[in-house]
């Protein structure tokens, strides 16, 4: 087949006329049979070799091309009776409604015809042909529901459409033949008015009298292992059409009764309808013998499994693996643990040279079943599988220039991905680390960019196969290049869980250990710099230990922590310094040091936290929720005071003395004030706890360096607080009350979801019920909102995907049309900023320090 390279100027879609169908056809199909007894395609059958070839040995009898040379050719059949094309059924309906059944004129009076015709002519003159359909739409609307033809004065009946493909006038059916006759009589001028350009299409072409038979190349049969031939669904459908069409002809010619002919006609209509679309309401889908519906034209195109989403938008690749992920804090940030099983299946092509010949031979000797081995050897275009039999020959014939596909080794480049790939960091380059087990292992610090957890998540791994691909992956996609997020300029990779808590406790002013303990701790996480370790005195503080993992000459200051020359002078490390998404310390390190240094420092900080926490031990007990008696008493008065003042407000309201706030009704004002009063209590109690409770309390430590906050402790030990549903106090339930045990219109705190008890002391039944209400509500809310917001994000990302910041700072789309005149109005590259701003003072300080 000759390939022509040309730019497509424009495409116009139109209808095929019966003449065109015959003209483009090369065969008239006369028999539903496919093959003769010898298994050769029957002449005039649906697999006729004039329709193209799908067998490697045969040649097309139309163009003499072989398989893959011949694009295939159409055939046709003459239909015994016309059939409606299901995709145009709506248009047919509209044309029936808007034209006269007697004279086929459009049902508009001459005045209106002239009006619309004038508009169309004017638009044509102006070259605005694309607006003509709008005029036609108006004309059609005007021609509907007309009782008497303005031209021949014939009385008209309402045409009713009965799904899927029947039209009724009164009680009489309008047969496709009649429709055909009516449409044929429509003048070209009227065609334009009802919205069909006669240059390209005629209304009657929507009714098929000749049926095109698509080439066999678009419906190839497949040979099963048993040697049987399985035909394509389209071929099945086509043979149904041809068979019924033949019977229809036979019966008509034999002068069979009209009922039989009509039955066959209906059947033909059914087959032709399902040929185009096998998923129409009111039409039972045509099925295989197995009961599974046939995949006809429409099903090939639409839906997730269709041509667009499956074949054109969806791509599949080799050299990829997918399995469950699990955490391993002992491997580096930029590594991925790969099961040996997978490492033996995925391969890296390694070109044989004089220098690596012996090394590669060791892989071939191991073969495909021993790790580290090799699976294939490529010699030019020949691909040889390494097996026990071929091993010897391949080994002796191995020469420079060949390519060995060897198993994965530690340090190989890979691309790691978790769906949904919503941002750049969803696909990153990791170094392979072959490990036992069956899951991919990843450092828990990279969970955040992938949005991964270990409740069964699976991830995909790809092995780049060329030097270019590997280089690209390393330079653009390595984890260390992705630490700072382009969306806010902060670090997406940071310490989590034990690593935060460990470092927090380690850098407590009171933490101290012997020199031996400190050295043991640091050696265990890979700090072996004797210069640093020898500096330790007999007693070593936690801050000194933490400083040992920091680079020398590193400075850092925030509102709590001060680091000078790589020494933690004061302050305690917490999520604000080393956590993810706002760990300013980590971000500063990332900015000042190279990628590999960052991975090293981050890894050490992370491991130090974990190692120290393991050494010290950390847990939580019920007694952590034991709040000192005096604080509890104070809290009690705070709560009862709040309830009293809430009741006071309610009292005022009931006496009609409550004044409404501007823009609010009295009821809204009441709710607002009461809510505010009651919500306050929990916050006041929380503040009181964090001020007074000892900072050795495990729950407090967790709230400062780990998960949760002080409110969680307040809820367990003092009070759970007001339960909110849809932004207000609880409203629902019975008429004018929340539960049957309250009086109607009871607005008191306890009747509207205020929980004054703590989790530890226990809720009363009413409180428990209110608490369950909000619990269920938030559960439903998250379950329903997640997919909604996910889809919203996807639509947004798709709409904006090819916007780009040009060199002049403007944001433009693919047509270079301007969307924004300065990126973000201030032309700041957010990924180079600190949360969207640039701290000029800091930069000046840094620069002046360097020049000193």
């Amino acid at each position, binding site marked *: 087949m000759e390939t022509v390279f040309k730019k497509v100027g424009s495409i116009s879609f139109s209808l095929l006329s019966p003449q065109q169908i015959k003209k483009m056809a090369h065969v008239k199909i006369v028999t539903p049979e496919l093959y003769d007894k010898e298994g050769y395609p029957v002449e005039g059958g649906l697999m006729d070799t004039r329709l193209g070839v799908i067998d490697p040995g045969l040649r097309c009898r139309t163009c003499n091309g072989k398989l893959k040379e011949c694009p295939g050719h159409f055939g046709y059949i003459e239909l015994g009776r016309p059939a409606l094309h299901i995709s145009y059924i709506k248009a047919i309906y509209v044309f029936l409604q808007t034209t006269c059944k007697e004279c086929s004129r459009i049902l508009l009076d001459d005045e209106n015809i002239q009006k619309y015709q004038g508009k169309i002519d004017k638009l044509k003159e102006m070259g605005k042909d694309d607006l003509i359909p709008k005029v036609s739409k108006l004309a059609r609307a005007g021609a509907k529901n007309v009782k008497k033809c303005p031209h021949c004065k014939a009385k008209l009946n309402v045409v009713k459409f009965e799904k899927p493909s029947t039209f009724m006038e009164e009680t009489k059916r309008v047969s496709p033949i009649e429709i055909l006759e009516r449409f044929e009589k429509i003048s070209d001028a009227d065609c334009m008015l009802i919205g069909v350009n006669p240059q390209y299409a005629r209304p009657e072409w929507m009714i098929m009298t000749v049926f095109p038979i698509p080439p066999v190349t678009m419906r190839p049969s497949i040979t099963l292992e048993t040697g049987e031939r399985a035909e394509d669904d389209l071929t099945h459908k086509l043979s149904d059409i041809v068979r019924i069409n033949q019977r229809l002809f036979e019966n008509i010619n034999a002068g069979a009764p009209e009922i039989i002919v009509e039955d066959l006609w209906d059947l033909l209509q059914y087959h032709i309808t399902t040929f185009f679309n096998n998923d129409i309401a009111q039409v039972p889908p045509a099925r295989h013998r197995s009961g599974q519906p046939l995949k006809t034209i429409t099903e090939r195109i639409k839906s997730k499994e269709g041509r667009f989403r499956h074949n054109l938008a969806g791509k599949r690749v080799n050299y990829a693996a997918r399995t469950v992920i699990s955490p391993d804090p002992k491997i580096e940030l930029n590594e991925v643990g790969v099961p040996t099983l997978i490492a033996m299946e995925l391969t890296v092509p390694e070109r044989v040279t004089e220098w690596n010949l012996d090394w590669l031979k060791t892989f071939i000797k191991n073969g495909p079943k021993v790790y580290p081995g090799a699976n294939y050897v490529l010699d030019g275009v020949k691909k040889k599988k390494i097996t026990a039999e071929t091993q010897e020959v391949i080994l002796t014939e191995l020469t420079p220039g060949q390519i060995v596909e060897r198993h994965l080794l530690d340090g190989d480049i890979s691309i790691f991905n978790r769906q949904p790939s919503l941002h750049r960091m969803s696909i990153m380059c990791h170094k392979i680390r072959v490990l036992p087990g069956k899951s991919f292992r990843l450092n828990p610090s990279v969970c955040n960019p992938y949005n991964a957890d270990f409740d069964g998540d699976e991830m995909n791994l790809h092995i780049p196969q060329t030097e270019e691909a590997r280089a690209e992956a390393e330079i653009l996609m390595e984890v260390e290049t992705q630490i700072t997020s382009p969306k806010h300029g902060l670090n997406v990779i940071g310490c989590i869980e034990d690593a935060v808590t460990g470092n927090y406790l380690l850098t407590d002013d009171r933490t101290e250990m012997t020199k031996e303990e400190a050295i043991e701790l640091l050696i265990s996480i890979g700090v072996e710099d004797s210069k640093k370790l020898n500096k330790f005195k007999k007693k070593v503080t936690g801050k000194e230990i933490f400083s040992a993992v920091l680079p020398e000459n590193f400075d850092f200051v925030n509102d709590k922590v001060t680091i000078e020359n790589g020494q933690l002078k004061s302050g305690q490390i917490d999520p604000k310094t080393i956590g993810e998404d706002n760990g300013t310390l980590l971000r500063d390190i990332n900015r000042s040091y190279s990628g590999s240094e960052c991975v090293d420092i981050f890894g050490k900080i992370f491991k130090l936290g974990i190692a120290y926490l393991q050494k010290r031990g950390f847990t939580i007990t019920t007694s952590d929720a034991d709040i000192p008696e005096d604080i509890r008493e104070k809290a009690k008065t705070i709560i009862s005071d709040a309830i009293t003042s809430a009741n006071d407000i309610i009292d005022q309201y009931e006496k009609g003395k409550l004044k409404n706030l501007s823009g609010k009704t009295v009821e809204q004002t009441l709710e607002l004030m009461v809510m505010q009063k009651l919500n306050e209590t929990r916050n006041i109690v929380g503040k009181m706890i964090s001020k007074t409770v000892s900072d050795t309390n495990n729950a407090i430590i967790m709230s400062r360096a780990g998960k949760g906050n002080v409110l969680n402790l307040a809820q367990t030990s003092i009070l759970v607080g007001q339960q909110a549903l849809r932004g207000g106090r609880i409203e629902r339930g019975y008429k004018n009350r929340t539960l049957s045990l309250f009086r109607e219109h009871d607005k008191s705190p306890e009747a509207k979801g205020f929980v004054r008890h703590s989790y530890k002391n226990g809720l009363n039944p009413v409180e428990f019920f209110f608490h369950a209400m909000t619990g269920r509500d938030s559960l439903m809310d998250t379950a329903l909102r997640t997919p909604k917001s996910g889809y919203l994000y996807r639509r947004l990302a798709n709409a904006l995907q090819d916007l780009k910041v040009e060199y002049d700072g403007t944001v433009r789309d693919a047509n*270079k*049309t*301007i*969307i924004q*005149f300065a990126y*973000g*109005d*201030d032309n700041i590259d957010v990924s180079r900023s600190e949360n969207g701003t640039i701290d000029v003072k800091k930069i000046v300080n840094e620069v002046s320090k360097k020049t000193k």
Partner: protein
Amino acid sequence: MDISVDITAHILVPKHSKMSMEEANALLEKLNISINQLPKILKSDPAIHNLNAEVGDIILIERNSPTSGKANYYRAVING
């Protein structure tokens, strides 16, 4: 079309003004674009109702911006 409420007086409607020929040409020159690469605004847009703008004019919109304080935006007037 008559507008009974002057929306340009509303606090959320930024200031719209018609650019002179010289200004417009200078802008297109600066951005190195033709007028149809600019964002569009309908001639019937209520915000430019009082500007007597014609198709092909360029409207300057002076907006407040949370990032840069003030930000200028330009729109080409189109039919409709």
